[in-house]
């Protein structure tokens, strides 16, 4: 006969108000197999836990059911208490009579009856519980950081400085991300390059950071502490070991008119190029789509040009380089892939999002986006820091900034606030005024969201000292009218329609998730929201973790973030990883699947449905080494315990520990009391 202890918690008045806890305890005392049943005001308090521990010893309990709040709240607490009293922690279960009972029902009679039944179900389950041990798994103390923007750079440096090995993967030819494109940063107006470049160099030189640029994550396998990642090193056509970054190849390249991605199309680059002078690494990359040689090979099969190869004295140019896959073992992964900017074009990459026909779908010259303005304002940009119109190179005397383009616009498919635009627009208005004396900046805004340290003061400065005229309203329509852009807006504060003849318009376009981020998220088994921003494990308490253990988030991959936020998240993620790396082994819940070798028929239905690839093939041989059969075997390190294999197994030869068929059937059987 089992000896089970039942502990009914009042939770102050939370449970006791609607559940007659005394009656529950009495009813359970009568239940077969229950050796002890009691109630107490706060079971999770110290005296409450002591009560449980003492009862385990005094009544020689071989199972415990605590009827209280949700197991999500206190299962760990009571299992720890049971363990300290010498009972295997997995012989302790909770019945949820608060969230699922006392809080959602008013009728005392009904609630009490339900509480009795819920507790009985768990008692019946516990009868079939088996002692289990937590799983211990070794930890590979190397981290993968995906994305080399400011978040990835910060995470990589913090990790490496903390003693961990780091593999930093960046898909572009250089690290630096969006921050390297910015002119100056709010709210201090310090030069973005000046604060970023030293950190980029630090990454490059750090002995514990392996930097892989022009590379992408191909595949991820494994689990926390033990991931195996494959990285595609895209063919750069330049041998990174031989290249010394002299730039002779670039000077020799005859294809000079390719719109530069780094300059947002406002500047040009060659086919073999470094994206910007401070790029790290300073190794050029050959853009095969625009290279004369590769075009000629594709068209006629003949070689052509090859001037860069001739120009390179180190023989570093290799036209026959192929993509290659490198494999790394890592214990944790930080995802810091950042964002892309929304474009107002008619064609959109995602269904459900549309462009702005009322603003000409991006076809009106001199209507640019915020990042383009950054390039114009940047001293190292295409205009050497002068604000000039792209169409005719004239200095705009009237400039209009439109905020919330794509943001907070349900009709265009994006309802969220992009968070950074209020600030950078204020910055733009300021920079404009500093650079174009006597110029007038207008800002169409809806609400000014400046809730960071020194942020509101910064916006006030743009208005009070730099004379930006803020108009509260959205613009209905804009179009080119001869030399000017007619901007039709409404100032809701003076209640007047406003038409501005602008020389230039800057759109503060929304921050969007990176293209194809879903594919990466799926490789990592991390969920994402409807806008494809990756989901944190808990919005308040676990902001940089994900629901996949060992995978962490930093920066705008999770939601629109500014630089300080991204850096803080990156340091937080690094701290989490270092915490993980501080032990040699990890403990995990033992709720995993296990195959009964004697009845498995080797049909491998389980292998087909397992989302983790945890099912392996195991050969059963007789003593002479003759193969008897091949059966399924679950890798305890990889299995996450979803139980899909169990429900699928035709021969019922696989069980999920902690949720075995007998345990579930016991609960079902208890339904009728």
């Amino acid at each position, binding site marked *: 006969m089992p000896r089970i202890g039942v502990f009914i918690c009042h939770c102050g008045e939370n449970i006791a108000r609607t559940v007659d806890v005394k009656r529950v305890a009495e009813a359970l005392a009568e239940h077969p197999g229950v050796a002890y049943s009691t109630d107490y005001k706060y079971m999770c308090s110290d005296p409450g836990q002591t009560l449980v521990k003492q009862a385990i010893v005094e009544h020689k309990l071989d199972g415990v059911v605590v009827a209280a709040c949700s197991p999500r709240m206190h299962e760990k607490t009571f299992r720890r208490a049971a363990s300290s009293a010498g009972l295997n922690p997995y012989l302790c279960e909770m019945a949820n009579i608060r969230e699922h009972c006392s809080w959602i029902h008013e009728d005392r009679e009904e609630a009490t009856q339900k509480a009795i039944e819920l507790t009985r179900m768990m008692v019946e389950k516990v009868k079939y519980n088996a002692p289990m041990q937590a799983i211990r798994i070794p930890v590979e103390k190397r981290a993968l950081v995906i994305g080399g923007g400011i978040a990835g750079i910060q995470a990589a440096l913090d990790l490496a400085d903390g003693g961990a090995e780091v593999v930093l993967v960046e898909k572009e030819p250089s690290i630096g991300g969006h921050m390297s494109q910015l002119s100056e940063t709010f709210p201090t107006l310090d030069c973005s390059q000046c604060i970023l470049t030293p950190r980029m160099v630090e990454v490059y030189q750090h002995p514990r950071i392996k930097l892989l640029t022009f590379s992408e994550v191909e595949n991820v396998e494994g689990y926390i502490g033990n991931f195996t990642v494959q990285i595609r090193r895209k063919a750069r056509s330049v041998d990174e070991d031989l290249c010394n970054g002299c730039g002779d190849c670039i000077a020799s390249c005859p294809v000079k008119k390719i719109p530069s991605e780094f300059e947002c199309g406002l500047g040009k680059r060659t086919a073999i190029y470094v994206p910007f002078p401070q790029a790290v690494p300073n190794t050029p990359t050959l853009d095969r789509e625009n290279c004369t040689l590769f075009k000629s090979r594709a068209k006629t099969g003949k070689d052509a040009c090859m001037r860069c190869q001739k120009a390179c004295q180190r023989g570093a140019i290799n036209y026959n380089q192929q993509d290659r896959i490198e494999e790394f073992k890592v214990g944790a992964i930080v995802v810091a892939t950042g964002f892309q900017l929304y474009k107002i074009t008619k064609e959109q990459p995602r269904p459900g999002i549309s462009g702005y026909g*009322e603003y000409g779908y991006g076809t009106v010259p001199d209507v640019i986006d915020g990042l383009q303005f950054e390039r114009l304002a940047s001293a190292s940009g295409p205009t050497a820091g002068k604000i000039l119109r792209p169409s005719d190179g004239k200095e705009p005397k009237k400039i209009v900034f439109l905020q*919330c383009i794509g943001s*907070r*616009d*349900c*009709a*265009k498919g994006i309802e969220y606030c992009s968070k950074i635009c209020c600030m950078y627009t204020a910055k733009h208005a300021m920079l404009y005024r500093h650079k174009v004396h006597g110029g007038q900046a207008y800002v169409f805004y*809806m609400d000014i969201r400046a809730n960071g340290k020194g942020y509101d003061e910064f916006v006030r400065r743009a208005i009070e000292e730099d004379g930006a005229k803020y108009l*509260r*309203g*959205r*613009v*209905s*329509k804009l179009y080119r009218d001869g030399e000017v852009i007619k901007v*039709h*807006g*409404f*100032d*809701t504060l003076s*209640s007047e*329609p*406003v038409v501005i003849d602008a020389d230039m318009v800057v759109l503060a376009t929304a921050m969007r998730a990176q293209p194809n981020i879903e594919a990466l998220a799926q490789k990592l088994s991390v969920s994402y929201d409807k806008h494809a921003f990756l989901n944190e494990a808990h919005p308040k308490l676990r902001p940089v973790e994900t629901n996949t253990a060992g995978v962490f988030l930093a920066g705008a991959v999770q939601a629109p973030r500014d630089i300080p936020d991204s850096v803080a998240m990156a340091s937080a993620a690094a701290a989490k990883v270092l915490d993980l790396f501080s032990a040699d082994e990890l403990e995990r819940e033992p709720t995993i699947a296990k195959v009964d070798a004697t009845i498995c028929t080797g049909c491998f239905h389980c292998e087909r449905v397992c989302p983790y690839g945890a099912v392996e093939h195991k050969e059963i041989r007789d003593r002479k080494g003759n193969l008897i059969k091949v059966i399924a075997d679950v890798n305890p390190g990889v299995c996450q315990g979803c139980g899909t294999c169990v429900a699928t197994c035709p021969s019922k030869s696989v069980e999920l520990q902690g949720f075995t068929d007998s345990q579930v059937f016991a609960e079902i059987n208890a339904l009728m009391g």
Partner: protein
Amino acid sequence: MASPEQQETGHGLDQHAPAELKDEVAALTGANPARCYQCGKCSAGCPMAVETSLRPHDILRLINMDQREKLMENDSIWLCLTCETCAARCPNSCDPARVIDTLREMSLASGSTAAPKAISAFHQAFLNQIKSGGRLFEVGLIANYKFTGGALLADVMTAPGMFMRGKLALKPRRIKGVKDVRRIFAACEAAAKEQQ
């Protein structure tokens, strides 16, 4: 934190107060005025914004503030051209055009006389024409309108111009199903009264 007493009162109000204007409008239009965040994009594109005292976003604001009388007694809702520019560009799908249609209907039902005489007379004259013949008889419309509207403008003088160009039929044509049309009118007018 609200005291229990305040909560009690608050709850009581919710239960017994008549439906707020915004809820009424939401029920009648299927658009939710509460979604309006007062960006003014509707008013920025409204061709009549220079002529009206209340612009589309003002109207949404007053609906959300439950200012029934102010809306019903203002002629702005009658100056809407129903060009739908506001609805097409509203970031929150508040559909101001449809909302204003509904307000006009409510205003008529409430017996408000805020509609500019010329406009209400035109609508009335127009509908009278259809009611009597099933189709619009333009000469009849102009005559009916100019008399009831009282604005005997130069327009009537251009009617001969229209006539000379063969653009005006002088005899109304009545359709076979005119009874059918009149029944539709009667049913819709009855429904409007009932709603009130």
